[in-house]
């Protein structure tokens, strides 16, 4: 990353191909104030999730220990003290009815949230690239078939199908993987459309025609000539899809279809907090605001990437 940051923003108007190379893209991103802020926040969030055990250790807590002594059993097991039991030992308070530390659960929940969102987005990306490239480069039969298939996938009521699938698959199947597969399986179609459209434009370019004249195979054309040109739009779209997947995961967990307890997840925290909003608002606000911040940050990053990749907005 440091090399990318150090790379000079060239004064010459870059050719489209040059501008779309990742290091240049990153450098342009860094040059924008919004991009800089989003990038820093994303790195911090990812670090917080990776370092969840270390940070919980700093606080002196872990996500699964019950603290009955911090609850008032006579009033429904609500946390003792104000603001959901916030104290020097429990930085964001404790969970009602169990007394588990909210700060630790939030950090460990971030792991599930980011992991599933990243996995699902990656899955969407790979499937979308594969279908989009094949449709864009194949003959009209292949294109027609794959495009109708993409339309079909877009038309599916994905939420209902996700709920049904999550309820049907046995509990023994690893839940985070299942969530990734389902979110990817229902979310690849828009990526495929974008990739197909870009491919149809790129394949008419002179350098692609030249490669074909030299006798390059379709595979080679796809990998060496078309794919590099897809980086900018695809990276941008992916960065915008990630927060969507994050919200989808939280939604499914909220419905009780996500990872199983005691593994913490934000959706689950929101779900169990929903009845407590009047008596323990802290418990509701903490996971809600964290999710909001995360989604905003990733959306901001995507938006900044989109602007950085747009040749018309190049700052000279």
């Amino acid at each position, binding site marked *: 990353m440091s090399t990318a940051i150090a790379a000079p923003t060239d004064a010459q108007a870059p050719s489209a191909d040059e501008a779309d190379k990742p290091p240049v893209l990153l450098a342009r991103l860094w040059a924008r104030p919004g991009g800089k802020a989003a990038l820093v926040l994303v790195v911090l969030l990812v670090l917080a999730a990776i370092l969840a055990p270390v940070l919980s250790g700093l606080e002196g807590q872990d996500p699964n220990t*019950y603290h009955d002594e911090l609850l008032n*059993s006579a009033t*429904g*097991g609500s946390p003792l003290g104000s603001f959901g039991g916030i104290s020097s030992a429990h930085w964001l308070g404790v969970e009602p009815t169990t007394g588990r530390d909210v700060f630790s659960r939030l950090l460990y929940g971030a792991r599930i949230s980011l992991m599933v969102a990243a996995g699902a987005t990656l899955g969407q990306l790979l499937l979308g690239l594969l279908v989009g490239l094949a449709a864009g480069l194949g003959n009209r039969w292949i294109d027609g078939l794959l495009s109708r298939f993409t339309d079909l996938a877009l038309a599916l009521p994905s939420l209902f199908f996700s709920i049904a699938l999550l309820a049907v698959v046995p509990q023994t199947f690893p839940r985070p993987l299942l969530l990734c597969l389902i979110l990817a399986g229902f979310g690849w179609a828009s990526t495929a459309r974008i990739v197909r459209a870009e491919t149809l434009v790129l394949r008419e370019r002179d350098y692609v025609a030249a490669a074909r004249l030299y006798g390059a195979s379709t595979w080679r054309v796809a990998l060496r000539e078309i794919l590099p040109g897809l980086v900018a739009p695809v990276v941008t779209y992916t960065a915008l899809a990630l927060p969507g997947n994050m919200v989808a995961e939280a939604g499914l967990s909220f419905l009780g279809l996500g990872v*199983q307890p005691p593994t913490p997840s934000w959706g689950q925290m929101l779900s169990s907090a929903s009845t407590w909003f009047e008596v323990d608002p802290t418990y509701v606000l903490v996971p809600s605001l964290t999710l909001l911040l995360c989604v905003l940050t990733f959306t901001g990053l995507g938006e900044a990437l989109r602007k950085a990749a747009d040749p018309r907005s190049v700052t000279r």
Partner: protein
Amino acid sequence: MPRRIRLAAAAVGLTALVGSLTAACGGSSSTSSAAAFDAANCTGGTLQVLDQATEDTGLDPAELYTSGGGAIPRLLFRTLTTRDTTAGADGRTVVPDLATDTGEPSANATVWTYHLKSGLKYADGQAITSADIKYGVERSFSSELAGGPPYLRDWLIGGETYQGPYGANPDLASITTPNATTIVFHLRKSEGDFPYLAAETQFAPVPKAEDTGKNYNADPVSSGPYTIQNFTKGKDLILTRNTYWSKSTDSQRLACPDTIDISFGLSATVIDQRLAASVGQDADAITTDTDVDAATLAKAAVQPSLKARLTSGNFPDTTYLAFNTTKAPFNNILVREAFSYAVDRTALVNAEGGSQLATALTTFTPPSIGAAYHPYDYFPAGATGNAAKAKQLLAQAGYPNGLTVQLAYDNNDPQDAAALQQAYAKAGITLKLNPIDDSSYDSVVTNTTTEPALSLFGWGADWPSGAPFLTPIFDGRDIVQGGGNFNLAQYDDPAVEKQIDQINQITDFTKAQQAWGDLDAQLGKLALDVPLYTANDVVLHGSSVKNTYVDQWRGWYDISSVSVK
């Protein structure tokens, strides 16, 4: 064979109840509305009922599985006996309803005779006869009307082969009706608890001429204070007065509201929030099947007006950790004892919503069952578990480095499993969580071939007595191969079976309960399960509803007593 229930029980002065079923005073102290309730001047208005139940199988007295006649069914169906309509411990006693007394037993309690009161009429003006009650019981044997409790088939002579009144042999000879007001039941074994069973809806009269078989559930003939005006299954039920019902023959139903409007299929959260807000029609509302949640209790703690509308009561039930003693490592009593010592009941009670909603339990029978509760604590775990003692027992059992086992639980209720997991970790026991889907949980756990080694289960009594509480769980003859087995320990001891038979011959209810309590205290030593807690029922009602109390037989509002005037 009572149901798996999460219903209710406890907070009422636990120790005061011990051995005092009949002695306990029946003083009603539960009216929580501001204006005084006057039973002589309570009629009028429309009561709203907000329920989770969908009632999409209808209201056929043969198909209903109730405890003590249920809430709404009891407004439509009168039975030979019924529960005493009063607050406090007396609500657990059985009293006559259609009959003049609770039954005359023969010396060994195998023949039970009932005489009907005079002047009993259906909602269409016809007289109720003993033949109608016999017909009602006979219908419940028909396979197309299955669903009720299984006791009748087990108890009545010829019950195991009888196929109901629609087939080739329509008559069940073990029920005789010498005249229009007398009915006699001949049992194949002694059953001192027969009057308690006679409170269930299978003992409601059904006029043979009006029987529409499978379709009877949409519009049954009423013998109670109300009759069906409009019934949309899964949606709502509107009840209006049965003009032929008379208070002079019915001392157990006040029937204050003129109309009762019941909404089905609401979510628990919606019911709680509507009752708490108590706006408009909801001020006249109650629920017959929804407890408040923990957050509402926390809110009530700082809101006296809400707290005044909370009512609590008991349903005798137990949530416990069930060992399959035919499977390792639970065939070893030392392991079972270690699990009993290591349990953290405080975490479980809090996970259920704190001390108002659950009470820790070290006995299988809960205190709310009355005289059949004999306190014992053979493996004292203290409030939060004795991990050191558990480790020592595990070492003795050959597990010096602890052990790993799977815990099966209903995935709709993960909070207990998570609480157990963290407590057992302290004793070196790793619980691997095995969530099973709610829809198949019972069928997996109660099937002897698929029963896990360790599972979370609950048990509630069909009537407040030790018999339906202990027999299905500990009688070896009740180990049903295939599905529907509730003896989860698969415990089979002929000496205990003989003891059970002897207790069933006792017709003095209090003496019988003492004997059941002794049996529970004796079985407790074997650590066949770990009793965890008994759930308490805390319910909310709208601000204009009067004479609300939770009946101690079922742990829900007695809908036949409340008033909205």
